C-alpha cells in the first residue's frame, strides 16, 4: 500500500507547500521559507527512496477511474524518476536562489505559491502513467507558470505573459485534440496510451497507420510549443522578462523540459521506438529538431543581452533531447535522455549566473560583462563551466550527451546528425567564447551599470552565490562521475536497457 | 365541428394576435396586456382541445385555474415593478 501512495506523497509535498504558502500572510517570511525549504528537502528524500526502489525493480503505482474507461495514473518508472530527480533537486536550488533574489520584493507569497505549484505540475508530468494524466499536469503547468512570467506586473511583462499564453494555450489545445483523438479513434480501451503497457500499437491494422502518422505530429506540435521547436518557440525569448529564478525554472526544469519529456514519452511509451521507426515518423522529427538546433544557435549569436542569448541557446539545446529520442538504437536514446538532465543543470547554472550579474552589478548586456570575472570570480567560474559544458568540452556533462548522440546517430544510420552536432558545437563556441573572453581577459570599463550589492566577504549575497556554485559542481560531477551507479548516465542507460529489452 | 374545437381555434387566433402585439408594442403596459391576452388564448386551447378529443375532462379545468392564479400573480409583480420603474424616471415605452 505504501508503494501505491509514494507517488501521491511526492506530488503532495509541493502541492501542499503551494497551498500553505498561498494562505500564509505576506509578512510571515520565516515560516514560509522554513516550510518551503523543508518541503523541498522532503521531496528530494522521497524521490531518492523511490529511485532506489525503482533500481530494485519495485513498482510504485497509484490509479483510480477518473471518467468511465479512463484512469488517473501516477506511476514511477525509471524515466519518470530521471525527470523527478531533476526537478526536485533544482526546486531546492532555485527556491534558495529565489529567496535571495526576491529579498524584500512584494508579492512573495504569491510568487512562492505558484513556484511550488509549478514544481507540483512537473512532478505530475514526470509521474503521469498515461497520456490523459500527462495532459492534466501539462495544462496545470501552463496555468501555474503564467503568474510567474507576469510576476513583475510591468507593461512589458504583461505583454510577454500574453504572448506566453497564446503559445502555450494554443499548444495545449492542439495537444488536447491529439490526445482526445488518440483515445477516441485508436485506443478506446486505454491500453496503448498507458505508458507501462508496451507493444500494442504495432498490432493495429495497417489502414490505421496513416492516422497514427498524422496523430504523432499533432501530439508533437502540441508538445513542441513547450519544447520550443522552431517555429513554435516564439514565447521563450520574450518570457525572459520574468525574474531570473523563473527563467531558470522555465528553461531548465519546468516548461521546455515538460515538452521534451512529453516527446520522449510519446516516442518510447506510446508509439514504441521500433514501431515509430517503421512508421517513418522519426526521420521528419529528427530533421525538425536539427533545424531547431542550428537555427536557435544562429539566433543566439545575434543577441546582445545575456538572458536573450541564453534563451536562444535553450531553444537549440532542448532539441538535442528530441533528436536523441529519434535515433533508433540504445546509444542514441541514452544520449537524448541523459541530455534532459545535463541540459537542466547546465542551463540553470547559466541562468543563475546571469541573475547574479544583473542583481549584483546591474549587468544585462553582454558588452557590459567586460572584466566581471575579477569582480565576481565564483559566479564567473560557474558560468565558464556551464558554457564549456554546453559547447561539449570533455569531461563536462555536455560532452557526454554529445558523444552518445554522435555514436547513436551512426548506429541508427543517420550520419548527417554528426554534421549537425559539429555545426552546433561550433556555433555554441561562437556565442559562448566571446562572453568568456570578456569576462576574463577584457579590462573593466569604468563603473558597473548599477551596483546594488557591494563586494563583502563574497562577491554577492550567499543565497545567490551558493546555489549557483552547487549546480555548477553538479554539472561537473555529472561528467566526471558518469560511471557511478546513480549518475545521470547510468540512470539513462538503465532506462534504455529496460526500454529496449521488454 | 363541436363548440370545444371552436374554443381551441379561437384560442389559437387570440394567441397569434397577442404574440404579434407583444412583439410589436413598445409600451411596457401594452406588452403586459398582450401577455394576459395570450394567457387567455392558451387557456382556451387547454380546455377546448382535450374536451374535443376525449370528452368532458376535469383535469384541464384544474390546470387552467392554476394557470390563472399564476398569471394573475405574474401580472401583479409586473405592475409593481413597472410602477417603480416609471416612478424612478424610467421610460415606459423605450
Amino acid at each position, binding site marked *: 500500500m505504501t508503494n501505491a501512495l509514494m507517488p501521491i506523497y511526492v506530488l503532495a509535498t509541493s502541492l501542499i507547500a503551494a497551498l500553505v504558502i*498561498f494562505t500564509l500572510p505576506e509578512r510571515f517570511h520565516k515560516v514560509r521559507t522554513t516550510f518551503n525549504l523543508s518541503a523541498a528537502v522532503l521531496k528530494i528524500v522521497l524521490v531518492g527512496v523511490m529511485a532506489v526502489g525503482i533500481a530494485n525493480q519495485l513498482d510504485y503505482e497509484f490509479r483510480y477511474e*477518473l*471518467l*468511465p474507461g*479512463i484512469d488517473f495514473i501516477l506511476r514511477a518508472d525509471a524515466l519518470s524518476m530521471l525527470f523527478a530527480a531533476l526537478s526536485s533537486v533544482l526546486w531546492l536550488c532555485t527556491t534558495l536562489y529565489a529567496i535571495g533574489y526576491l529579498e524584500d520584493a*512584494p*508579492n512573495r507569497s*504569491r510568487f512562492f505559491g505558484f513556484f511550488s505549484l509549478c514544481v507540483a505540475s512537473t512532478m505530475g508530468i514526470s509521474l503521469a502513467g498515461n497520456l490523459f494524466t500527462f*495532459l*492534466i*499536469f501539462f*495544462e*496545470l503547468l501552463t496555468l501555474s507558470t503564467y*503568474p510567474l512570467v*507576469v510576476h513583475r*506586473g510591468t507593461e512589458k511583462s*504583461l505583454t510577454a*505573459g500574453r504572448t506566453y*499564453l497564446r503559445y502555450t*494555450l494554443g499548444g495545449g*489545445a492542439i495537444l*488536447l*485534440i491529439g490526445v482526445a*483523438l488518440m*483515445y*477516441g*479513434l485508436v485506443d478506446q480501451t486505454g491500453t496503448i496510451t498507458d505508458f507501462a503497457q508496451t507493444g500494442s500499437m504495432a498490432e493495429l491494422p495497417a489502414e490505421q497507420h496513416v492516422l497514427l502518422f498524422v496523430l504523432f505530429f499533432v501530439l508533437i506540435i502540441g508538445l513542441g510549443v513547450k519544447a520550443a521547436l522552431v517555429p513554435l518557440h516564439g514565447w521563450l525569448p520574450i518570457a525572459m522578462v520574468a525574474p531570473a529564478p523563473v527563467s531558470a525554472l522555465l528553461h531548465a526544469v519546468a516548461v521546455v523540459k515538460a515538452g521534451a519529456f512529453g516527446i520522449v514519452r510519446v516516442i518510447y511509451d506510446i508509439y514504441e521506438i521500433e514501431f515509430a521507426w517503421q512508421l517513418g515518423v522519426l526521420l521528419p522529427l529528427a530533421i525538425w529538431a536539427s533545424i531547431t538546433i542550428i537555427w536557435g544557435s544562429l539566433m543566439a549569436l545575434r543577441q546582445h543581452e545575456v538572458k536573450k542569448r541564453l534563451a536562444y541557446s535553450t531553444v537549440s539545446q532542448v532539441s538535442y533531447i528530441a533528436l536523441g529520442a529519434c535515433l533508433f538504437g540504445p546509444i542514441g536514446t541514452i544520449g537524448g535522455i541523459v541530455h534532459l538532465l545535463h541540459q537542466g543543470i547546465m542551463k540553470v547554472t547559466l541562468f543563475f549566473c546571469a541573475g547574479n550579474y544583473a542583481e549584483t552589478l546591474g549587468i544585462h548586456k553582454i558588452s557590459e560583462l567586460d572584466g566581471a570575472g575579477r569582480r565576481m570570480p565564483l559566479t564567473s567560474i560557474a558560468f565558464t563551466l556551464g558554457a564549456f559544458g554546453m559547447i561539449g568540452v570533455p569531461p563536462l556533462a555536455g560532452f557526454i550527451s554529445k558523444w552518445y548522440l554522435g555514436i547513436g546517430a551512426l548506429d541508427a544510420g543517420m550520419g548527417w546528425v554528426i554534421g549537425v552536432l559539429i555545426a552546433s558545437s561550433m556555433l555554441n563556441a561562437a556565442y559562448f567564447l566571446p562572453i568568456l573572453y570578456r569576462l576574463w581577459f577584457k579590462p573593466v570599463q569604468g563603473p558597473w551599470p548599477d551596483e546594488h550589492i557591494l563586494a563583502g566577504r563574497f562577491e554577492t549575497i550567499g543565497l545567490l552565490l551558493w546555489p549557483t556554485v552547487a549546480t555548477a559542481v553538479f554539472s561537473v560531477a555529472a561528467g566526471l562521475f558518469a560511471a557511478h551507479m546513480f549518475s545521470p548516465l547510468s540512470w539513462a542507460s538503465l532506462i534504455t536497457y529496460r526500454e529496449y529489452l521488454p | 365541428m363541436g363548440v370545444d374545437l371552436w374554443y*381551441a381555434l379561437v384560442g389559437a387566433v387570440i*394567441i397569434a394576435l397577442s404574440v404579434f402585439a407583444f412583439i410589436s408594442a413598445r409600451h*411596457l403596459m401594452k*406588452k*403586459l396586456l398582450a*401577455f394576459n391576452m*395570450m*394567457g387567455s*388564448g*392558451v387557456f382556451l*386551447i*387547454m380546455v377546448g*382541445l*382535450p374536451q*374535443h*378529443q376525449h370528452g368532458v*375532462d*376535469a*383535469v*384541464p379545468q384544474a*390546470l387552467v385555474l*392554476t*394557470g390563472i392564479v*399564476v398569471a394573475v400573480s*405574474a401580472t401583479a*409583480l*409586473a405592475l409593481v*415593478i413597472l410602477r*417603480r*420603474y416609471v416612478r*424612478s424616471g*424610467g421610460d415606459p415605452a*423605450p
Partner: protein
Amino acid sequence: MIPILLIIPLAFAILSLLLPRKWTRTIVIPGLILQLGAALILCLTIYTEGPQDYALGDWQAPLGISLLADGFTVTLLALTALIAALCAIYALFFLERYNREQFYFWPLFWFLLASLNGIWLAADLFNLYVGLELLGLSAVGMVALTSERPALKAALDYLYAALFGSLAYLAGVALIYGAYGTLAIPQLSEMVAGNITTQVAVALMSVGLLLKTAIFPLHFWLPPAHGGALAPVSALLSALVVKASFYILALIWLDVGALAVTVSAAQLMGALGAGAILWGSWNAFKTPQVKMLVAYSTVAQLGYLMMLFPLAIGVSEAAATMAWQGTILHLLAHAFAKAAMFLSVGTLVLAIGHGRIADLGGVSQHMPMALFAFGLSAVSLMGLPPSGGFNAKWLLLQSAIQSGQWHWFVVIAGGGLLTAAYVFRIFRVSFTETVRHEIQATHPMLQLSALLLAFIAIGLGFASEWPLRLMDLTGGGTP
C-alpha cells in the same frame, strides 16, 4: 422523504415573511442545514434503494401532483442545496450594507429554492410549468431588489421574457394534453408518437424554454439581469435558475418527445449553441464591466449545454451516453464555477466600489483569495484540467469523435480558447501593481465562500465518477 425537500424551503419562506425582521437572518443557517441534510439523505436513499416516486396527499396522477426522485434529480437537488447554502452564507455578509434589500432577499431566496426543488422533482409537464413560473417570479424579484432604475429595467425585460417563455411552453403543454390526455412524464414517454401535433407542441415548448434558458439569439435579457443584480443573486441565477429550464428542455427532447424530434432539428439546436459560444465570448471580451463579463460568459457557457442535442440525437448509444454524461458534468461544473466567479467578482466590486475592469489593478495584493477563487473557477470554465469543466469537455469531445461529428468537435475544442481570451483580461489587469482606487476591507467570509465553490469546481475534476454513477440510477423519468 421527497416532499420534505419542498416543505423545508416553503416553510422557511413563510417564516421569513411572518417573523419579525430581525429573525429572518437568524433562521437562515438552520434552514440551510436542514435543506442540505435532507438532500443528502435523499441522495443516500436513492443510491441504496433506487429511484422513488411520491404522490402528494395520496392523490394519484392525473389529478394529483406526483413527484419523482431518481439519480439525476437527486444530483440536481444536492447541487442546488450546496450552491444555495454557500451563496446564502455569502449573502449574509454581503447584504449587511443593504439594509432594506436583505429583508426582501430571504423570502425570495427560499421561494427560489422551493421552485427549483419542485422542478427537479416534478413528474409531469404542468407541474414543471408551475415550477418555472414560480422560479421566474422569485428570480425577477431578486433582480429588482435594489430598486435602481437599471435593475428595474433589467427585471422587467427578464420578467417579460420569462412570461412569454412560459406561455409558449404552456401552449405546447396544452397541445400535448389535447393529443394524449395525460401530462405525466413516465406515461408520456411511452405514448408520444412522432406526429405533427407533437412536433408543433415540442417546437412551442422549445421556443419558450430557449428563451428562458437565454440561448443565443434569445439571450438579450440575461446580461443586464445577471450582470446588474447583487452578487449573490447573480450567482444563484447563473448557477441554478437557467439550468432549470435547460433541464426541462433536455427532458422534452431526449425523453418525452424523443420520437418527434429530428436529427436536423438537433443540429439546429447545436448551431444555436455554437452561436452562443461565439457571441457570448465576443461580448465578454469587449465589455468594460467585470460583472457583465461574467454574465456574457454565462451566455457562452450555456452554448455548451446545447451540444447535448446534436451529440445525443440520432447517434449510437455509446456516443449518446457520453454526450449526456458530459452535459451533466458541464452543468454541475459550470454551476459551481460560475457561482464562485460571481461571488468573487462581487467581492472585488464591493472592495473597489464599482466594476470597471480597468480599475482592478492592485487587487491581487489586497484580496488574493477572491482573485484565486476567480482563477480556479476560470480554469474550470476554460475547460482546462484538472477541473470538472475539463472532464465535461473531454466527454463531449469523445462523444463527437464517436459519432463522427467533426464540426462540433471543433466548436467544443476551440471554445476553451475563446473563454481564455476573456478571462485572462481580468488576470492581466489584476497583476498590475498600480492601485487606481482605494480598496475597502471586506469580510473574509465573502472570499472564503467563493473559494470553497471554486475548489468544488476543481475537485469535480477528480470526483467525476461520483455524480455520473449516481446519475445512472434512472427510473422511468430521464433517459
